[in-house]
Every structure is written in structure tokens, then in C-alpha cells.
């Protein structure tokens, strides 16, 4: 069995540009996912607010309960029927971000609910409104607890981003397949791609670990 990495090496520029598109899609989706996940997670804190709670629960159920690939195809192939024609990149970001937001919302809700209820009581008894207490007191503490599960979710997001290659987005996966289609060196190219994805996820892991350690050193976590 002979390995031949020359096609991958020869087309390194294509792989690099693919990798940078993957980073762009992932970072945009990540921002969307965190923002939306925070809102949905907070919306599910209080079942007494029936409309908000109901809406957020339906969101969670739909976006967590169906395959990401199906969601991406609905964005890209389905919506044009209603005259909604989004660029492929936007479909990729919306699809990935809104799918991931459903998971992030549960991370957010779990972390917030794990904060001792005395914290909210102490903040409210000083006279803070519930949103002041949430942003000044509860969320900073909950944030620390969110980091490890968020790290997992971000890593999933990076890996899941390979699916956007099916929406004609020229990401790392897409560029790799283009090289394979002319060189037929599928094993070698997929191995190279796998290593590049692994580097991205490992980099993310290291960064999050650093943040966690820094917060611990700062006394944010007991």
C-alpha cells in the first residue's frame, strides 16, 4: 500500500482557503448560537410565563429534535419556494447556529438553575430587579459553570460544519472533495482534512481550558 500526499500538498492553497471558510462559518454560527442560546435558555427558566416558555420549548424541541442535515437542506433548498433566497453562506450559518443554539440553551438553563437560589434572594432583597440580579449576580457565576459543556458544544459545531459543504459552501470539506475528484487520493486527502479539523478542535479545547483556569485562579470558582 503506498501513500501519496502530493495532491494534498500541491493544492495546499485550496485547503487553506477551505479551512478559512470553515473558520468563518463556525465563528459566525458560534456567535449566533451563543446569543440565541442565551435568550432561549433564559426564556425557559420560568414556566409561569406561558407564551415565552412555550415558544422556547417548541424551538428547543424542533431544532434539537431533527437532523442538522435536514435543517440545512430546508434553509437552502426549501425556503426558496417561499421566495426566500438566502446566500449559501447565510444558510450554513443560520442552519448551524440555530441547531447549536438549542443545545446551548439547555447548557445556559442548567447552569443558571444550578446557582443557589439564595443568590437571587440576596440580590432581590437589596432591591435589584430580576434582570439586574440576572446580569450582575447570576449570569457571571453561571458563565463559569457553562464553560466545560460549552466547549463540548463548540467542538461539535466545528465538526458539524463539514455538512455545509453540501450547500455549495467552499469550506474545508468541499475543497478536499474537489481535490479527490481529480486525484482519486481519497484516503490521503481525508486524512489531511481530519488532521486540520483536529487542530481546530484542539486549539478550541486549549483556549477554553485556559479561560477556565484563569477564572479559577481569579477566585470565580471554588
Amino acid at each position, binding site marked *: 500500500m503506498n501513500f501519496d500526499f502530493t495532491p494534498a500538498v500541491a493544492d495546499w492553497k485550496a485547503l487553506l482557503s477551505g479551512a478559512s471558510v470553515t473558520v468563518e462559518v463556525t465563528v459566525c454560527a458560534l456567535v449566533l448560537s451563543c446569543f440565541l442560546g442565551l435568550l432561549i435558555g433564559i426564556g425557559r427558566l420560568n414556566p409561569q410565563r406561558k407564551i415565552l416558555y412555550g415558544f422556547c420549548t417548541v424551538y428547543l424541541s424542533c431544532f434539537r429534535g431533527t437532523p442538522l442535515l435536514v435543517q440545512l437542506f430546508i434553509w437552502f433548498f426549501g425556503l426558496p419556494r417561499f421566495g426566500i433566497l438566502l446566500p449559501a453562506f447565510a444558510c450554513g450559518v443560520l442552519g448551524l447556529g440555530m441547531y447549536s443554539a438549542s443545545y446551548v440553551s439547555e447548557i445556559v438553563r442548567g447552569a443558571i438553575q444550578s446557582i443557589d437560589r439564595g443568590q437571587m434572594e440576596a440580590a432581590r*432583597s*437589596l432591591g435589584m*430587579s430580576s434582570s439586574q440580579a440576572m446580569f450582575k449576580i447570576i449570569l457571571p457565576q453561571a458563565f463559569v459553570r457553562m464553560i466545560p459543556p460549552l466547549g463540548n458544544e463548540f467542538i461539535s459545531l466545528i465538526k458539524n460544519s463539514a455538512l455545509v459543504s453540501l450547500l455549495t459552501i467552499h469550506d474545508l470539506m468541499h475543497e478536499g472533495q474537489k481535490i479527490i475528484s481529480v486525484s482519486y487520493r481519497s484516503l490521503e486527502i481525508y486524512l489531511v482534512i481530519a488532521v486540520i479539523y483536529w487542530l481546530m478542535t484542539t486549539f478550541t479545547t486549549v483556549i477554553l481550558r485556559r479561560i477556565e483556569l484563569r477564572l479559577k485562579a481569579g477566585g470565580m470558582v471554588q
Partner: protein
Amino acid sequence: MTSPAMIRINQLYKSFGSNQVLKGVDLEVDLSQVVVVIGPSGSGKSTLLRCCNGLELAQQGTIDICGQRLIENGAILPEKALNNLRTQVGMVFQSFNLFPHLTALENVAVGPKTLRGMSVAQAETLSMGLLNKVGLAEKAHAMPASLSGGQKQRVAIARALAMEPKVMLFDEPTSALDPELVGEVLSVMKLLAKEGMTMMVVTHEMGFAKEMADMVVVMDGGRIIEADVPEVIFKRPKEERTRAFLQAVLKNEDSVS
């Protein structure tokens, strides 16, 4: 009564589900008075105290505090007015509930900074003064996790004082403390009482009640069974249940000493 009542509780009823914990409580706390509430566990003391700043909702009866009607037959003040009223009512919890992500100084300063629109410098000057008052100026930049229980509770008292409350509510402030740390918290409370702070204190510290209370209120089974000056409550209580409770508590204290 000539002095104005800071807290006036009238026929208060409160239940958790089918469990009725307050069964028609009447109580008045006057300006600068120290009222100590004692009684067996489950008698409703803490719930009564927590009703006084709206942490629990009483379903029937009224509470007036600092000249405002907090609650009337289950209808509590609207959100904004409630938040405003709470700035005038300080609360100290059994489990301290310090904010663990903030230093001692920031714990005290966060209230005035957020709610009184104070600048960081103003809030920190005020907070430093209060930490000094509770004897913890040198711990200003310590995180709560590195403080002892007694120190935490003193910071918590300073935090409540930072809002310049007219009334202070204490919910078993020394119950979670190691015995040797109780004294430092009680002496801060005594200092406040001497300064004329209006205080309602739920506690098992009979020594504090004897020494500092203007009135001792004995609760049992969701009702106030007896309320009088400490000399009467501790020397010649009218109620058999008061006698039994005090005997049990004081016997315990004797066996320790």
C-alpha cells in the same frame, strides 16, 4: 402608641400548598425597636420574616413596612415599588448568600453602584467605611471563599447596610456559624441596635434576646403565643409552651457551658 410603627403585620396567613405555616399573625415593630422572634423550628418564624420583604407571598392579611403597604390579601406591591421598598429593608440570611464572584468590597458596593447610581469611587468609599464598621477593612479585597463564616456574615451585614435601610431583618444570622464565631456577628448586631436601627431578628441566641430585645415574640404552630419584654418572657412566661421551649433551649445551652 406614639412612635410610628416601622413594621405592622395584621392577621397574616401563609401556606405552602396545603401546609399552613402562618395562622393569623399580628405584630408591630416600632422605630428603633429590636424585636426578637423565637420559637421551635417549623413555628413559622423565618417565613414571617421573609414575608416582610416579599421573598414569600402571604395569601391573607396585610404588611405595612416603612410606611408602605407591602402586601394586602395576596396582592403585593408592583415590581418597581417593591424593588424600591426593598432598598429600605435590609436582609441578612442564615447562609450569608455572599456573591462568590465578587470581593468583600464589591459585595458591599454592588448594591449602591447598581441601585443608587453611585460612581465606583463613591460606592467603594461608602463600602470601605462599612467594612471598617464591621471590623473587616483588611479583608476588603478577599474573595468570600477565603473568609470564615463569621467574617462572611459580617460582610453580609455591611452589604445590607450599604443601601442605608430603615429596617433590618435577620434570619437566624448565627445558626450556620461555628460556636466560637457567633460572638463577632452578635457584637455587630448589638452595635446596630445601639445606633437605633429598627431590627427584627429571628434567632436561637437567647443571650442576645435577653440583652438587646425591646420585645421578645414567641411563635409556635404558625401563631404568636406570647410577646413581651425579655424579663417577662424569660423569668415568668405566661404560656406553658413558652416555658417548655425555653427549658429545652436553655438546658441545651447549659450542657454546653
